[in-house]
């Protein structure tokens, strides 16, 4: 099981600013390991953020996202105390879901 995401969601007037830091190796599939063989690609392919059962952001990623991916975005329509659900899934089928409360 992958390490938990670091999540922050803070209210700025009527906007919620969301910052997400995921723990993932993000192997491009081009890098060579110490033994000279190519390290197979291992990267997050899909990310979704949900608020109150509604999808607010959806992403598809390739292997060109940096190791331990960072993502920041903002949306309207939530209030302090609401819960957000962030889920990622990678190209090997591993997945992780974490929750954060809007502060």
């Amino acid at each position: 099981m992958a390490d938990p995401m670091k999540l922050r969601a803070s209210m700025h007037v009527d906007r919620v600013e969301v910052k997400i830091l995921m723990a993932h190796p993000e192997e491009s599939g081009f890098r060579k390991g110490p033994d000279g063989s190519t390290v197979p690609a291992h990267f997050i392919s899909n990310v979704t953020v949900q608020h109150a059962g509604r999808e607010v952001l959806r992403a598809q990623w390739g292997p060109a996202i940096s190791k331990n991916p960072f993502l920041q975005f903002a949306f309207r329509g939530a209030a302090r105390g609401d819960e957000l659900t962030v889920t990622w899934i990678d190209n090997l089928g591993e997945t992780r879901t974490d929750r954060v409360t809007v502060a």
Partner: protein
Amino acid sequence: MDDSRRNLITAGGLLAALLAAGSRAAELAQPAAPAWNQAAFAAKTVADCLKTLGVTASQEGAELDLTAPEIAEDGAVVPVVVQCRLAGVREIHILVDKNPFSLAASFFFSDGTDPFVSTRIKMNETSSVVALAITDRQAYLARRPIKVTIGGCGG
């Protein structure tokens, strides 16, 4: 018909119902893999990638901001911010001209989500980063050259 037989039949029916429910639960627990645009992520040039995304015409303008460093010392971590001042932006894509595969990321926005995204990408060598914003009617492009000191794909 005696009672024990009736009970057996009822139990059998219940068991069948439970099994059916169980298999349905297993289906629910294993959702289909989410969509991933294989063709777009396999494109090796920005032009090809735009084609796979269905973009035939696009305009470059001041409505789309692409913020990134002029010189990235480490190509493995290049911070990129894309912000659009247009209404009705549905998608923002980030592409890198000279990466082995051009498309780095695609973001899909719901109503109420700002057309803004900040992330960190890998760049193999000095090249242009391209931001593409797609509204209901139009596609917008922003381009920015970034010098990379150390490549971030292989090594």
